[in-house]
């Protein structure tokens, strides 16, 4: 409730107070419109690049190539998307067919997200509920990975992949990205809030550690798992540097990397209509995940950063 009305309302009996109230109300209405204006402007600026891309993906190559950027959808949408799915474009800079790249991206994102969640759940469980020698050492080793993003150790990590002969198979693409300090910290934080009585009760009922994990801890963690999954799926889908480096087999190309390849050096002669269709396909899945699972997404985002 805006505080100005609460001030003006109870004493709005005198004439000058009445005009004050009217003026306040008018000012508030103007401010509300201004708020809507700024928010709308923000929304439009955010949406503009997507709109142009969406529109461009429904026109033919020559319309876009001429530079007559259309603002409304055209009639070539189906063929453009069909071309993207069939061949990945026919220009000099070709990518794999979009269907294959979408599949690769989805597989990579799923493997990274589930892998990260699985091994982080297990290690957080071990660190919180067991006392064993080397517990703190293990915890700090995992914590350390937070400080070593793949970008700063590109070449030596690549060297490990070469040495292990992990080339090309999905394994080389996903396993090195699966270690997760953030997820482990999140689950650790959550496990620490679980009352000791739960463990005691489980022990009295004769449940072993694995049973406790499966029947009590896992169901309690569902919310956290869902929230984390949204974040990690997007993280996995959007990977760029690592796939660019590791994948040299066309059949494993992901759509984000493939899209960037189609741009080449950005010549005006590119098949922009097909590229735009591919761009829409590349951003649709993660955007849908965010929009449809907004509540989990916001929760996951704000909790992983604590």
């Amino acid at each position, binding site marked *: *409730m805006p*505080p100005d009305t609460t*001030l003006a309302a109870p004493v709005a009996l005198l004439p000058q107070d009445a005009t004050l109230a009217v003026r306040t109300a008018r000012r508030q209405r103007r401010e509300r419109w201004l*708020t*809507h204006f*700024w928010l709308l402007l*923000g929304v439009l600026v*955010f949406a503009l*690049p997507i709109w*142009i891309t969406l529109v461009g993906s429904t026109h033919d190559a020559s319309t876009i*190539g001429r*530079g007559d*950027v259309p603002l409304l959808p055209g009639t070539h949408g189906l063929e453009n998307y069909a071309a993207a799915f069939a061949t990945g474009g026919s220009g000099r800079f070709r990518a794999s067919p979009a269907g294959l790249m979408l599949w690769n991206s989805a597989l990579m994102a799923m493997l990274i997200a589930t892998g990260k969640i699985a*091994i982080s759940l*297990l290690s957080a469980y*071990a*660190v919180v*509920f*067991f006392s*064993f020698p080397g517990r703190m050492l293990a915890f700090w*080793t995992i914590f350390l990975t937070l*400080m*070593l*993003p793949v*970008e*700063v150790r*590109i*070449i*030596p990590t*690549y060297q*490990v992949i070469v040495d292990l002969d992990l080339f090309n198979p999905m394994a080389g693409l996903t*396993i090195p990205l*699966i*270690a997760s300090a953030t997820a482990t910290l999140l689950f650790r934080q959550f496990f*620490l809030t679980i009352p*000791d009585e739960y*463990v005691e009760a489980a*022990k009295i009922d004769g449940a072993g*550690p*694995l049973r406790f994990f499966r029947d009590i801890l896992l169901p309690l963690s569902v919310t956290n798992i869902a929230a984390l999954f949204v974040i990690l799926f*997007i993280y996995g889908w*959007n990977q*760029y*540097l690592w796939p660019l480096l590791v994948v040299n087999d066309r059949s494993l190309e992901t759509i*984000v*990397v493939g899209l*960037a390849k189609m*741009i080449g*050096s*950005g010549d005006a002669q590119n098949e*922009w209509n097909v590229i*735009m269709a591919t761009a829409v396909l590349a*951003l649709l899945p*993660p955007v849908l995940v*965010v929009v449809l699972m*907004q509540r989990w*997404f916001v929760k996951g*985002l*704000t909790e992983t*950063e604590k």
Partner: protein
Amino acid sequence: MRKKVIFKGVALPLLLLAPQLAITCVFFLWPAGAAIWQSVLQQDAWGLRTEFVGLRNFEEVLVDPAWREAAWNTLVFSAAVATSAMAVALFLAVQADKSIRGANLYKTLLIWPYAVAPAVAAVLWLFLFHPSIGLIGRALNQAGILWDYKLNGGQAMLLVIIASAWKQVSYNFIFFLAGLQSIPRSVLEAAAIDGARPTRRFWTVVFPLLSPTTFFLLVVNLVYAFFDTFGVIHALTGGGPGKATETLIYKVYVEGVQNTNLGSSAAQSVILMVLVIAMTVVQFRFIERRVHY
């Protein structure tokens, strides 16, 4: 807070930790160690002899004009991305925090760019700013402003900044909005009763109370601009024109993949590692303080 009731056993917890620790050691610690080891070695031109050179690789990197240029680019780029993404996000969050109709719809429409990959964001903005097919690029050229980010280094830098910041605004928006909503209404009402105008109220009451969020976001945004924007630069400019948009990360990538100067590349990686570690330490120290706050 320690658990009082704990399961016994050594084998089981170690088994549970095994996958995480194995990946951490093989793909994180080992490569990081290898980078440090290589950074103090130098190979001769034929790769036949390797000798220990101490800190000479670091010296060479730090005085190399190309490295200094990349460091300067990184600084300009990161500062611009962080400040613009945070300023726009704060402004929009303040607007969305007001009680107006459709606030939730606005929120949804403002957070989705988070899901767009940096490389895809680059492609989207390329469609707008391409000198011959882009809506804005063409308009600029028609208005008499020579616009071609493929030839003009400053324009290329501007474009990678816009594409990178655009994507990051949503993230900052979510955190600023959460921060604004956690400010007690009574504090704001007290300021209003004291007669402070809305703008003054914002800078003297709201903004100081937001400072933990702001500082946290500053670190996150700098880390983002440093490391996660590789895709933007690679897809949009490839570090060019010339080396106008080559950042430190991009330089490590280019030299590691194309050149064979392992010692220099490793030394550059180690410098970056020190930077990340410093940022992480700052972030965590600060978060500890925020808990007390």
